[in-house]
């Protein structure tokens, strides 16, 4: 790639530096390891939210099934960790030692074939990327080639999330069922539950997040990024400019899926278990709201949105547990009605001019993010033929 300047404006570089500073300096200093670990958990959702910015905010494809990919990544990681925790010695009291405990309870006597490869860390890391990408590709290819979009896509992805949840819960012998895969301990012999490990995992998570942000920035600043916006606003025009629109959509959907899966894998590592409650409809929609609160057009906004909503959730539910749902519900409505561009919109209209003046920079260049009011941001190309 060419020079820094070509894919990052001064504003954006500043944004990235601020996030890096917050992640690596401010938070570790301000919080004890308990809060920091919590914070690290929220950051894993930010991966999903960033994916949604690309997919939904820029590309206009609203997926209500991102939990599926978060779950796939998380489960891949959890399968590896569970196998490592299920050594014959540690599981000596089982009737079949050496297999995960929940399999033993379900009278499964040998490790199922699809668990076998997860003995290898290399395979697992690869699977975290490849499995969700392939899955997203299949869904995307089937739907986008047939021009299913907008609301229909949202509903179908939601149904897929529901199906996967029922399947995971129903096949508990292979998946751990509703309890999920719990009691994960070590990664290559390294205890992931100690405070030290949590610090390290937090930093790994943070570094990955920064890496993902940079990667997204590269994508967004490439012609593909502008194409995404173009597809959202004038899908037909893009098509009649000689692009295969479905490929663009499939790509961004797979990309978002992979980001979610990375988040899921980091979640498993930091929280120590994975369960079907992150796969279903409710978490998937919550992740959309993280993205919307941050501002659906800004990858940096998505990170802050995720952190803000989760922080509010934790504080609110600590102080007024019974009022939390009112707050969350109101937040959904407010974000849609009052400030559709979320935090980043507020920043752009109030703070950015000040920052600009302060930094002596002027002209934010041709940045689609800074476009005026988004009255019609979510073009919804529907499958229904229209006049």
């Amino acid at each position, binding site marked *: 790639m060419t020079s820094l300047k070509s894919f990052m404006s001064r504003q954006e570089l500043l944004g990235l530096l601020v996030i890096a500073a917050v992640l690596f300096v401010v938070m570790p200093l301000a919080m004890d390891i308990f809060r920091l670990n919590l914070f690290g958990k929220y950051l894993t959702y930010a991966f999903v939210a960033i994916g949604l910015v690309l997919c939904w905010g820029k590309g206009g494809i609203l997926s209500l099934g991102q939990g599926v990919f978060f779950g796939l990544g998380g489960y891949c990681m959890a399968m590896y960790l569970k196998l490592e925790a299920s050594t014959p010695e540690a599981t000596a009291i089982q009737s079949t030692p050496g297999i995960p405990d*929940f399999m*033993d309870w379900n009278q499964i006597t040998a490790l199922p074939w699809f668990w076998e490869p997860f003995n290898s860390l290399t395979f697992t890391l690869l699977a975290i990327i490849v499995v969700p990408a392939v899955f997203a590709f299949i869904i995307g290819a089937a739907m986008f080639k047939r021009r299913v979009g907008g609301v229909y896509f949202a509903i179908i992805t939601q149904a897929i999330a529901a199906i996967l949840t029922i399947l995971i*819960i*129903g096949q*508990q012998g292979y998946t751990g069922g*509703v*309890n999920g895969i719990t009691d994960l301990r070590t990664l290559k012999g390294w205890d992931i*539950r100690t405070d030290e490990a949590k610090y390290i995992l937090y930093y790994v998570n943070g570094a990955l997040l920064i890496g993902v942000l940079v990667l997204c920035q590269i994508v967004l600043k490439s012609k593909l990024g502008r194409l995404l916006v173009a597809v959202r606003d004038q899908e037909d025009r893009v098509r009649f400019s000689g692009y295969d629109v479905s490929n663009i959509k499939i790509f961004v959907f797979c990309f978002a899926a992979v980001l979610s899966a990375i988040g899921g894998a980091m979640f498993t590592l930091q929280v120590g278990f994975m369960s079907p409650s992150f796969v279903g409809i409710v978490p998937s929609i919550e992740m959309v709201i993280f993205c919307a609160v941050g501002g659906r057009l800004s990858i940096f906004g998505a990170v802050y949105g995720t952190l803000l909503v989760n922080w509010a959730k934790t504080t609110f539910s600590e102080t007024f*547990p*019974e009022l939390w749902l009112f707050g969350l519900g109101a937040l959904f409505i407010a974000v849609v009605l009052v400030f559709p561009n979320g935090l980043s919109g507020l920043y752009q209209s109030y703070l950015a001019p000040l920052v600009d003046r302060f930094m002596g920079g002027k002209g934010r260049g041709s940045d689609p993010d800074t476009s005026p009011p988004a009255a019609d941001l979510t073009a919804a190309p529907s499958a229904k033929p229209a006049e």
Partner: protein
Amino acid sequence: MRRVKDIVQSRMSRRSLLAGTAATAILMAAGTVSPSFADEVNTTGLAVTDDTVQVGILHSVTGTMAISETGSVQAEKLAIEQINAMGGVLGRKIEYIQEDGASDWPTFAEKAKKLLVNDKVAAVFGCWTSASRKAVLPVFEQYNGMLYYPTFYEGLEQSPNVIYTGQEATQQIIAGIDWVAKEKGAKSFYLLGSDYIWPRTSNKIARKHIEKLGHKVVGEEYYPLGHTQFNSVINKIKLKKPDVIYAIVVGGSNVAFYKQLKAAGIDMTKEKPLLLTISVTEDEIRGIGGENIEGAYAAMKYFQSLDNENNKEFVSAFKEMWGEDIVIGDVTQAAYLGPWLWKAAVEKAGSFDIDKVRLASPGIELTTAPEGYVRVHENHHLWSKTRIGLAKTDGQYELVYETADLMEPDPFPEGYQ
């Protein structure tokens, strides 16, 4: 920057737990009940002052599980209030910190960690679903906390950091099946459940026991949580004509299941088929409607209608605190036992230290339990009687049978080791 106790971290095997218990039982013989200064009864930095001790209550008050967990929260608060009225534990008033698990397992883990690490509570009363317990278990083991878990559950677990105040599956299942086989001459069973670990494991135990008795299982089926259409399975039941419908349906599905069963003309007040459940307490009947479940049998350790002095006091105190029209189910009663068992263990240990409380726990007896007499087993579950109740239209169970002896908890039954 913080003092996390260096403790027995990994899960102890059952054998070492037993050995440890025996060794310290002697050391503890002269436990004192008199008040003493905070640092003497608390060497590990728990939230204990000279006149207060903090504990945690960790249940869902929001989300789908709030329906079930409300009763447990009420029972725990009642027990804490009563203990305080009697002068507290080791002369210290109990203060509780309530956290919301929000029906979300990582939230449970997160809040458990907060209670243990930030609040340094001396004990936590909480969790309801197995999934939430599985999620907090590593936290309790890592940070060495004490959890009193109230729900009847599938077993297959035994942690040094949990006291299971509800029954594990074998206690509930075996007595019930023996009873219908012997008293009602049941020979064929249709097993039915919501699709998750407790019903599936319980039905496996049930199937084993039924087959051991030489009887037959004619069907076994599971429906997703929240499923509301049971007409197909009811038709299958009609076709197979089992003597017993063994139902472990939970939550909202329950209501649909019993209403549809009744509507389909399966009259449970007749001899055949009879219905035996281990999942419907008085709490659930409120939603189902007494008229829809009349004639069903339930096998569990407690019914609100139990006729003994302890229970009468408990029921009236509960109603006084939470309202006249409240009902009390098995889990609610088990939750009520939590604070009392903890108090007894702390006083036996003469200390709030988790390790000492743990060692003091096995053998703790409660003669004042609403269900009657209970005792903590070495495996941290309770010895308790199992009872069969007959559901009446008023939403209460009528006791028709109780085991003569306490049932021994056996969380790892044969074939599940």
